[in-house]
């Protein structure tokens, strides 16, 4: 990477890092104990699920799709883990692959249906949102399953770095995702398809497998998100992650990913997740009214996007 490129990428994330720094500063000044390692580590360790999902969501948004089923897939995955481990006494290393297989298969189906029959992915994944949630309730009998310490390893902080394996794996997935997007043929195709699918098809590239792969990756990452949430809470909750798709979309959009496709960055979405997470924890630490929390959260989402839009415009003028 040349010096200019490094400078460019710093500039690209400067806005997001600025917002994040502003939030951390605000909360540090307004609460007693926000700015300390323990708090920041706790925030990191509570959010790998949203990180996994936002990485998948970024890919799907870039190819010009949307995946509304992620919250339900997370719940379904964690139900699979819960049922296999509690009712059938499976060990965690056997239950997790099944979980990821199930969610990846659902993602694959999402992609296949929307691409092959040319149905907007909004509708297909909306259907999947309902079906996966229903399946979750059937699998668990609508009961919260308490798994206990057998599943906790992945979410438990490692003593040396005090970060959980879940967070470290999520970081790895962010780096891998960014690499996939910017350094591989697949990534280039994703961006190209999101920009102008017809043109890509005309130039002799098969677009369908690429889009389907993006959805399958999103589904697979939902499985990892299930594992990290289940291990953090030691239980599988059939009502888990209702509305999480909106948080994930918000994180991506805060990071500058376009809902129209063709533009986006995995690392930027990661910063988007951090902004949402810091906001959530900081507001809880302040202990403000619920209604105020909602107003502030919504406001920050809009401000962050506004900030990005202004920067884009400014950048173009130059």
């Amino acid at each position, binding site marked *: 990477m040349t010096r200019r490129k490094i400078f460019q990428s710093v500039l690209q994330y400067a806005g997001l890092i600025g917002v994040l720094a502003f939030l951390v500063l605000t909360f540090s000044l307004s609460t007693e104990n926000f700015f*300390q390692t323990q708090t920041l580590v*706790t925030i990191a360790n*509570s959010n790998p699920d949203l990180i996994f999902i936002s990485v998948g969501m970024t890919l799907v948004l870039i190819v010009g799709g949307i995946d509304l089923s992620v919250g339900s897939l997370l719940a379904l995955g964690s139900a699979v883990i819960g049922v296999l481990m509690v009712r059938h006494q499976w060990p965690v290393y056997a239950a997790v692959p099944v979980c990821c297989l199930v969610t990846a298969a659902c993602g694959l189906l999402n992609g296949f249906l929307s691409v092959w029959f040319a149905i907007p992915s909004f509708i297909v994944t909306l259907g999947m949102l309902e079906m996966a949630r229903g399946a979750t309730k059937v699998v668990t009998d*609508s009961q*919260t399953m308490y798994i206990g310490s057998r599943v906790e390893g992945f979410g438990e902080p490692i003593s040396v770095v005090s970060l959980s394996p879940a967070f470290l794996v999520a970081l790895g997935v962010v780096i891998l995702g960014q690499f996939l997007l910017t350094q591989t043929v697949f990534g280039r195709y994703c961006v190209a398809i999101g920009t102008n699918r017809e043109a890509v098809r005309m130039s002799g590239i098969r677009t369908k497998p690429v889009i389907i792969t993006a959805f399958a990756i999103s589904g697979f990452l939902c499985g990892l998100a299930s594992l990290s949430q289940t291990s*953090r809470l030691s239980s599988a909750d059939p009502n888990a992650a209702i509305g999480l798709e909106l948080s994930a979309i918000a994180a991506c959009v805060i990071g500058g990913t376009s809902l129209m496709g063709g533009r986006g960055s995995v690392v930027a979405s990661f910063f988007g997740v951090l902004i949402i997470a810091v906001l959530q*924890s900081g507001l809880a630490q302040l202990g403000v009214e619920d209604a105020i929390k909602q107003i502030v959260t919504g406001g920050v989402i809009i401000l962050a996007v506004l900030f990005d839009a202004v920067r884009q415009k400014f950048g173009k003028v130059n």
Partner: protein
Amino acid sequence: MRSFFCLLALPLLLTGCASKSETPTGGQAALESDRPKVALIMKSLANEFFSTMADGANSHHQEHAEQYDLIVNGIKDERDLSRQVGLVDDMVAAGVDAIVIAPADSKALVPSLRKAKEKGIVVVNIDNRLDRDVLQEENVSIPFVGPDNQAGAKKVGDFLATRLKEGDKVAILEGIRTSFNGQQRLAGFNQAMEQAGVDVVSSQSAEWEMSKANTIAASMLSEHPDIKAILAANDSMALGAIAAVKAAGRSDDILIVGFDNISAVQAAIREGKVLATADQYGDQLAVFGIETALQLIEDPSATADDVETPVDLVTAESLAESGTQE
């Protein structure tokens, strides 16, 4: 669009069901049948508490199948008020004799329940008490069959207080602020803590949800590292708090209490991760309501009084006792 289709389909389904058993002419049909028809309208059946309640009602119905017919309906999301109002109207149209309802909102359902009553349908309120002022304003009396949540929460709080000293600090995870149960449980917790001279340093709503409770409890622990206990207004939130306490490395010195006695929390109580919860016999709540409704159908002149159902404290000791009894 989706809900539009559901609305279209529902009356069709209902008349379909009715025509199988008897003539599909609404209110008249029920009179012709020798068995009264009872509609049970629940909150979200995805919530374990309500699905247990529905299971209890179904097994009671199976045992007494010759006495009454039962239709169970729930809404998808606990906050989907308009759907629940729609269900009440649907049930009225289907010609049921009684509606037993766990209202999603203590105020908004009163008008449609009043209309049901005006059509001669017996209405019994379970789980979440309808607002007294609104009932009075609408000039309607609906009996409430259910537990005293405030007294239950007070029991849990009192038990926790025996493990705390005066001046200790605690935090509360509240339910959804607008729900009557949530308010009652909060009141009970606060009352118990006040009596014990314990200081509530933070009290925030986690909207009954495990993951949200986890985030909020973690923040509470960061901001107030000196708290000695977390009181959660339901067990899902208590489970979320366990994880937060563990992440903060405070499992040994922070006490957690919950409410509802769901099966997942029993394991946590046995392991000592949760100190206590309250059992309001969720599986029997709907049954109590149905029995009251059947009495009122049989004897319409009877005055509709509130019925208070039991709430008991559940601790490791009480679980061990009931375990040995089995």
